[in-house]
């Protein structure tokens, strides 16, 4: 064999190949890579197409009706002749449930993520992660069904007691904790270096009584509330927050894990407690990932259709007062889903195009949110690299 190769042997064995074969190989490689690239670029093309086709159907609306009515009026009567297309209340409704769900999901999600990454032992974490994935996998229409058929009647019939218990359970421990800390801080502010125990106990006791009275008063007020309709912004915010949670938890947990043991050990070795280590070292170092997680979670809530369509009440007005979460609202996504059925029959009308205008608005929001979260991550990476 070796002799044959030395003698010149068969051409196909040689590692120096003919020019024609080389060219064939190059062409094959070029074509192959081109094919792969074409498929990979497909995603980018789709994104462009989505923007283009949504915009193309949205622009006629703005040409016909201008921008002012859409963004400033709250009269939404698309079926009238001539129709009125004021989407302010609808945009407001979208903002309202998005903010409402963020208020619930962000603190809950971040503390759950911290708990998963730093508190629970690894064995528990192994089971918690799949559960969170399951949560994320439950289809939105199932959540919507729950909101409409189970949660809405509950809220409508037992709203006051539910609100009161939620207040007691959630605010109670936090307020009492606040009392302990505030008592301590006051004592050291007044007593200076000496930090007497008596002083601290007195302060804590006084504050504690005030806090309990406050808790009781708010609880009583909540108890008296009558919820007129269970399909309201609170219901939707609750469910949306629940849907945004898995995203927030898993993305922030990943970024908390990425902070690494070294930093945690450095902090512990300086005499920090676990809470101090997490709040002062780990969270700042993971902040970019957490912000990205929050943005992604909020985007999910904003873009969600089925839950809001089924359980928001779909009434296009700004609640009175504007922060009244117990009132029905209507969102962009639900409007698109609900009105297209009729508007589709009259392709080309303002009624049809206004829904694309809303879609374009949503698309822009999601694009900006995505862009910002990407920027933040990139910038933080640079900071961590010591720029």
């Amino acid at each position, binding site marked *: 064999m070796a002799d044959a190769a030395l003698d010149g042997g068969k051409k196909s064995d040689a590692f120096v190949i003919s020019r024609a074969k080389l060219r064939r190989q190059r062409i094959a490689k070029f074509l192959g*890579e081109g094919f*792969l690239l074409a498929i990979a670029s497909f995603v980018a093309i789709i994104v462009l197409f989505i923007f283009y086709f949504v915009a193309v159907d949205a622009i006629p609306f703005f040409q016909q009706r201008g921008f002012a009515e859409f963004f400033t009026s709250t009269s939404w009567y698309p079926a009238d002749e001539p129709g009125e297309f004021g989407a302010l209340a609808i945009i407001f409704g979208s903002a309202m449930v998005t903010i409402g769900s963020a208020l619930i999901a962000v603190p809950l999600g971040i*503390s*759950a993520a911290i708990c998963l990454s730093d508190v629970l032992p690894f064995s528990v974490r192994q089971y918690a992660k799949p559960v969170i994935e*399951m949560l994320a996998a439950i289809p*939105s229409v199932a959540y919507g069904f729950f909101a409409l058929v189970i949660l809405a009647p509950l809220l409508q019939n037992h709203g006051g007691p539910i609100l009161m218990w939620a207040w007691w359970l959630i605010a109670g421990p936090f307020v009492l904790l606040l009392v302990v800390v505030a008592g301590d801080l006051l004592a050291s502010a007044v007593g200076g270096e000496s930090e007497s125990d008596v002083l601290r106990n007195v302060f804590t006791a006084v504050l504690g009584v005030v806090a309990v009275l406050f808790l009781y008063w708010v609880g009583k007020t909540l108890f008296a509330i009558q919820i007129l309709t269970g399909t309201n912004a609170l219901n939707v915010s609750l469910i949306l927050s629940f849907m945004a949670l898995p995203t927030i938890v898993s993305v922030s947990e990943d970024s908390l894990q990425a902070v690494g043991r070294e930093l945690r050990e450095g902090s512990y070795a300086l005499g920090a407690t676990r809470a*101090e280590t997490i709040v002062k070292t780990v969270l700042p170092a993971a902040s970019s990932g957490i912000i990205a997680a929050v943005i992604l979670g909020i985007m999910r809530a904003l873009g*969600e259709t089925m839950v809001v369509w089924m359980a928001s009440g779909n009434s296009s007005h700004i609640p009175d007062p504007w922060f009244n979460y117990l009132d029905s609202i209507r969102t962009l*996504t639900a409007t698109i*889903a609900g009105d297209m059925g009729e508007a589709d029959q009259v392709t080309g009308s303002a009624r049809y195009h206004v829904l694309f205008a809303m879609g374009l608005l949503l698309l822009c929001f999601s694009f900006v949110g995505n862009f910002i979260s990407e920027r933040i991550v990139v910038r933080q990476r640079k900071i961590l690299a010591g720029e």
Partner: protein
Amino acid sequence: MNIGTRKILDRSFTAVGLTSILLMALALLVVVVPIVSGGIGAIFFKGTIEHRKLQLREFDNGNREVLDRQIAESEPYRQEVFRMLDAFAAELETFEPTRKREYSSKVSSVKDIVSHLLGPVPGEPEPILLRFQYGTTRWEKAEESLHDLMFVTKWDTSNPEEMGKQYFVPRVDEFAGTSLAALFPYIEENLEKMLLPEQTFYWGFLTERSLDAHIFGGVWAEIQGTLFLAIGAMLFAFPMGVIAAIYFTEYARENVFTSILRSANSTLAGVPSIVFGLFGLAFFINTIKVSDSKSVLAGSLTLAIMILPTIIRAAEEAILSVPKTYKEASIGLGSTKWRTIVTVILPAALPGIITGGIISLGRAAGETAPIIFTAAVSVGATIGLGDVLTSPTPALSWNIYNLASEHEAANEIRHVQYGMVLALISIVLLLNLSAILLRARISKKLKG
């Protein structure tokens, strides 16, 4: 700060974390438990003789002899009810006109409930709608109707400050002194003998077609539609996603173009699902006209572009997790790059890629918004495989919405809705569970 306070803060911090996890678990239970128990109720319930009649006549399920015997058994009790109604009708003729008008409206609501319970009253014209041809098929519904029969619902609106309060008045009081007064205790006592409830395991809920817009029957058309749509979406998205992932992991150079492609991927992942629906309508149906109107094809294509980013990401991750040494070994043995990818990297990454695919399949099955304008119809028969290019289909996700929010008898068929939700959740969660198990096996294998 005092060390004691620092410790309290530390503990509370831990407590807050644990509480939030518990809250999430609790919320999951609160959502899943009623859905599961309600959904099981669609399949496993106390069925009345009407259910068995319907099954035998419409689907040819069940034992005719047993049923005939049971019909014969229940008939005397039913006859007694109809006899009382007839007797009262005769009595009504003797009343003076105002009293007659008053009582005939009262008795007609009694008749409505009775026919709702037991099926059409003999002698009246045969109803056209199937839902009126049979009595109540489920015992718990029969009990509800019995309550409606026994009591008249009234509203107390005396206090304008508050919402009206519901209260009940026994219906028998309305007929005090007439012959019909005896009907109410009779039905209350003998309803079970008229309907003969039995524990029923109605497997057909999953495999049979629906009758009269889901008033009776099963949800097979929806299940099949969901499967068509999800699998159709996978047929488009899976190969493309894997090929794109191969490009990103093995061929892409780190330059501006590649980073634009990557951003496009995450942008696509963030697009709200309803916008996909708009795009599907504007592009697939109105512009390139893959079908004249809604169709499974258009819906699958729309779902495909929605799940594409997920598949690409999962496949990328799976390919990247293949140890570099495999590749080096293969290249070192004189294999070409493409051969290495096909024969070494892809097989090693395959379980991971499939995991991502399964999860995406679940997502495609569960989504509603993208198919509203492109594929879903509210009421429809099962479609054949040959019709997928042109026909729309019912689908679980869409029909859950439709039955719960837009059906004229939404309150009457809650059990069907629960059953559909359970079917959908089961499909999605089973897919996810298998993906999770598959992944656990992969990581075990990697650890050795």
